[in-house]
């Protein structure tokens, strides 16, 4: 596969380094001359100097035959424009972009970027995962695949407590994939009895969060739980 990476910061460089041993071909575009000079010896002709939002720079790097474009500059506007150019002008089959500020996530979603990665949002999910106060944690969102991975805790007063997985009333479009209990992870089998304190990893279709929360945490209104896990108030 030929992968074009725009932005040779820590993210872009490490993506490139991980692709190389897998046998993929890549070119990395970097705008800052100092960074370009620093990486030149390692990357040789896989590295190109220039502004990756300029079309002639993208063309020189071979965007016309790219199977995948990875837009990971430190600037969200630039990443959006790179993703748009790749799709609209060059028909690149798949584009992955980095979201630097989670406030810009709606823009990436609006413009149909295939996959986005936001380090801040991921880190926030991981922090919530570690904190006992959060009973519902969105872990991973796969827009294109129409699927989300969430974690939900079984509380003492949950109607699901002490029931087998087959016996709990899950909303349509929700699958319990695994149970995390006492520091180990069990694959979810239908007969497995849920205990208070269990954390369930669930796969669900987007928009099913409230239905799942309603089924698992009836003692609390879904809005309250949503508010706790909201990232809207987060600013960088």
């Amino acid at each position, binding site marked *: 596969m030929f992968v074009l990476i725009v932005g040779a910061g820590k993210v872009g460089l490490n993506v490139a380094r991980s692709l190389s041993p897998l046998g993929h071909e890549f070119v990395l575009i970097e705008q800052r001359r100092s960074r370009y000079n620093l990486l030149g010896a390692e990357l040789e002709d896989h590295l190109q100097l220039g502004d990756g*939002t*300029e*079309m*002639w720079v993208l063309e020189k790097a071979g965007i016309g035959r790219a199977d995948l474009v990875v837009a990971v500059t430190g*600037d*969200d*506007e*630039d990443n*959006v*424009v790179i993703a*748009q*150019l790749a799709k*609209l*002008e060059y028909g690149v089959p798949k584009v992955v972009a980095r979201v630097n500020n989670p*406030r*810009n996530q*709606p*823009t990436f979603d*609006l*413009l149909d970027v295939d996959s986005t990665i936001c380090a801040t949002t991921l880190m926030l999910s991981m922090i919530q995962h570690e904190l006992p106060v959060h009973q519902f944690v969105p872990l991973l969102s796969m827009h294109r695949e129409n699927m989300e991975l969430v974690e939900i805790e079984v509380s003492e007063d949950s109607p699901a407590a002490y029931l087998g997985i087959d016996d709990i009333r899950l909303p349509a479009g929700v699958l319990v994939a695994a149970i995390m209990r006492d520091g180990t992870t069990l694959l979810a089998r239908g007969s497995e009895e849920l205990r208070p304190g269990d954390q369930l990893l669930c796969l669900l279709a987007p928009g099913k969060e409230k239905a799942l929360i309603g089924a698992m945490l009836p003692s609390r209104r879904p809005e309250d739980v949503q508010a706790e896990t909201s990232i809207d108030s987060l600013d960088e």
Partner: protein
Amino acid sequence: MYVIIAGCGRVGSTMARQLAAEGHDLVVIDEDPGSFTLLGDDFPGQRLVGQAIDWDVLREAGIEGADAFAAATDGDNTNIVCALIAARAFEVPCPVARVYDPRRAGVFARNGIRTVCPTDEAQVMMIDAVHECPAANGES
């Protein structure tokens, strides 16, 4: 007409003053509050500090009821992205972006926003100016 302008530089501020003088309702967004001095003390429109690609800032500017949106910040990509948001997310009927790079201006002009390219305009006018000099007309 309700008009939002992103970027209060020379172009943004002059546009805002002109349109306000014509009687339109104006909101000007810029991340630097110091830039609003270009509008003068008597500017009747609203000044809003913030980033024009931030949906909350755009909502605060009243984008949901805006008739036109003009992006004239100093960044081509910022202008493209905020005009795309205005067009696609808020369905502003007339989204315009200043884009210095002619090729990028062309691509996005075909994809939902109107673009103004000063580079293209300047080169046409410069060529006209050269054509008008006496030597070009055989008057050397």
